């Protein structure tokens, strides 16, 4: 596990949850708040190990629920349910393609609220639902889809700027150099 990358992911999750609670502009403009955690979970599933996914699911979920009226811990399993299948199939996903990131972001951003609401309803909670919730789901899906490539770009930039880079080995070797000389 890359400790630096995991710390960076958790720090980003912390700030993302705070931004969702403090910034009201998307709710005013579009009628729904955009969730950044699904996009971050996709980045984690494609670029980090399962321990990082587990930590993001637990801490991201707890942070989100602590600022919300959600029962504490309800967002952990939906986050894990997004990250785990992607982690299992990550060798088959073209993770560097923005379109692939967009599609995965859309799927994850739609799945996250659906799973959370399903869990709330199964726990005899009474969330605020109606026909307007469909519009909110569309906004969350598209907003999350657009945000995912941005999350990838931002995390990659931070990783590149702050993390240790892998030392690339050159194929050039002094002892194997062919000396061309005139006879």
């Amino acid at each position, binding site marked *: 596990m890359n400790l630096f990358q995991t710390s960076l992911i958790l720090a980003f999750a912390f700030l993302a*949850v705070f931004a969702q609670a*403090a910034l009201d502009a998307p709710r005013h403009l579009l009628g729904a708040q955009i969730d950044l955690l699904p996009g971050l979970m996709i980045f984690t599933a494609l670029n980090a190990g399962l321990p990082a996914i587990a930590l993001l699911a637990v801490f991201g979920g707890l942070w989100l629920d*602590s600022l919300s009226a959600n*029962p504490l*811990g309800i967002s952990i399993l939906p986050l894990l349910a997004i990250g785990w299948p992607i982690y299992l199939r990550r060798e088959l996903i073209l993770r560097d393609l923005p379109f692939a990131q967009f599609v995965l972001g859309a799927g994850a951003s739609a799945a996250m609220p659906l799973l959370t609401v399903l869990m*709330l309803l199964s726990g005899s909670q009474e969330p605020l639902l*109606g026909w*307007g919730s469909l519009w*909110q789901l569309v906004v969350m899906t598209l907003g999350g889809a657009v945000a995912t490539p941005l999350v990838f770009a931002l995390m990659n930039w931070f990783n590149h700027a702050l993390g240790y880079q892998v030392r690339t080995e050159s194929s050039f070797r002094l002892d194997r150099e062919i000396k061309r000389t005139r006879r």
Partner: protein
Amino acid sequence: MFKQKNYFALGAVIFVAVLILSLPASATTRLKFAISSWFLPLFGLADTAQRLPADLADTVLPRRELLQQIAKLRTENQQLKEQQIQTAAIARENDQLRTSLNWQKQAPWKLKLANVVTRDPANWWRTVQIDLGTRDGLRENLPILTASGLVGRISSVKQSSAQVVLLGDPSCRVSALVENAGRDTGILLASGPLDTSLVQLTYLASSANLKSGQNVVTSGLGGIFPKGIPIGQIVDARSVEYGLYTEARVKLNASLGSLEQVWVLFP
């Protein structure tokens, strides 16, 4: 492909989630408060950042405009003083009449100003956090209002902050009274997730004579909200459940979408 330690991580997350979800309510509340207190430094930073443009604008405001504002405020202050004298006279008269009729005296409301710090990040709840808590004397179920009208009630309190559940959230039900000839009473419920300015007033009598623009206030029933707090105005009404009762849409006086400061009411 899937190692044993990976199964361990997966099992650990599921265990933690199930454990937290099955904790007793008091323990969950304490844990929630502890976790949300991590965000306190960020709330302070956000508050400062929000105030900064306003402070900068204040420093560059021309002197002439400031003088105009002072003159306007002086006039307003004079009018309010006159109103206060009239209100005090009415209150004295009210007290005398209550005494002569042997009615219980109404205690004056005590209000405390609070800033709205955050909104619920989930779209399926309508709650906000305010910056007053148990150290300021707050407790659960205290009514929250603005100068325009009722906003909601406190649902949970921490030491330095509290969660307010707003009108229109499924867990904020208010007994309301329509100021018409029939004094019809009903219950305010959630209307929909998108429009925060409208709520449903339901379980009104089927014979209720409702008209657009009639004022809706708290009825005082239920023991949480004192009687007479303005809520909003009737928009339209319809008969439901084959004429069993009437349902009306109410436009709220308070703008729930742009709350910045609210009053906590100590009845």
